[in-house]
């Protein structure tokens, strides 16, 4: 839903880190997006390519990897991935939010809510 602003932050991070290292060109950018965020990787990629057009990262290969969710029940200690329902309206996953073992709604999200810039490959 907010792919544009997140992409702007990603681009800012990438360009800052690359310039700190006196990069001439940025060859690739590796990003990880949690499946429980409201970020559609395809849209992030689209915006990033747009934003980076007139920068040293204009030819960078953008790789986005999805991070699967990992949840833990605060009540019965169940751990695992949640049943997700792919909602075509938002291109994202809404999880049913209940523990499949005890039915509790007190689930802790351990993984799946991140939006990480992992690696930048540069040349000098």
């Amino acid at each position, binding site marked *: *839903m*907010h792919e544009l602003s997140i992409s702007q*932050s990603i681009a800012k991070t990438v360009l800052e880190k690359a310039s700190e290292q006196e990069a001439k060109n940025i060859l690739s950018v590796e990003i990880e997006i949690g499946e429980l965020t*409201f970020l559609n990787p395809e849209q992030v990629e689209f915006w990033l390519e747009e934003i980076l057009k007139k920068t040293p990262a204009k030819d960078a290969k953008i790789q986005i990897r999805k991070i699967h969710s990992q949840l833990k029940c605060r009540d019965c200690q169940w751990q695992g991935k949640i049943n997700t329902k792919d909602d075509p309206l938002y291109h994202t996953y809404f999880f049913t939010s209940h523990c499949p073992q005890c039915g509790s709604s007190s689930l802790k999200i351990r993984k799946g809510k991140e939006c*990480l*810039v992992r*690696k*930048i*490959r540069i040349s000098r």
Partner: protein
Amino acid sequence: MKSIKAKEGEIFDIELEEDLLKRNEELAEKNKHLLDKNKVKAIDIMGSVGSGKTSLIKNLIVRLKKKRCLGVIAGDLTTTIDAERIKEEKVEVVQVNTGKECHLDANLIARALKEFDLRNLDILFIENVGNLICPAEFPLGSHKRIVVVSLTEGPWMVTKHPYIFREADLVVINKIDLARAMKVSVESITKDVHRIRPELKTICTNCLTGEGIEEIIKFLSL
């Protein structure tokens, strides 16, 4: 940050651990800290476009302004309509225009907080941008988060947007005066909320008459 030094013309990798959503969470924690230090209680009000967020804030202000020092951050895409409406109640309002953005974030709130004299503030209401999806992903540093759903949004709103209810401390079911016209029942909306989180508190309101507002004040100890 790890980096491998290289000679001229060489290619190398910069490894990072830069989580952009985490960064918002960290900023939110800072905001909360600043509010706590000044003993300000901040309430984030989320909900769809037109659900009654500004009306709710106005109702709360009318009942609280005699005994509390109040401030409002009004988030809106581009207009100042809501800020003007709140100013009628003679409380301090800071308008935050998000431009094309679909939510407020902790950074915008940090900037808005600078506009207030926090030492002289008891309660800060933050009206988030009308949207049931994005605000859930961006904590602001508030102490309580309210979701306003109104009966005019139809019977499926809660079921379609479960995520925001996971982040809420209170659900206000507004425009109960229109239940019959809309053929939407308070009971079914309440049931939908409790299917997501059985313990989540719901309060029914009519912001035109002020029904339910006292209950909110009591529940949030305002």
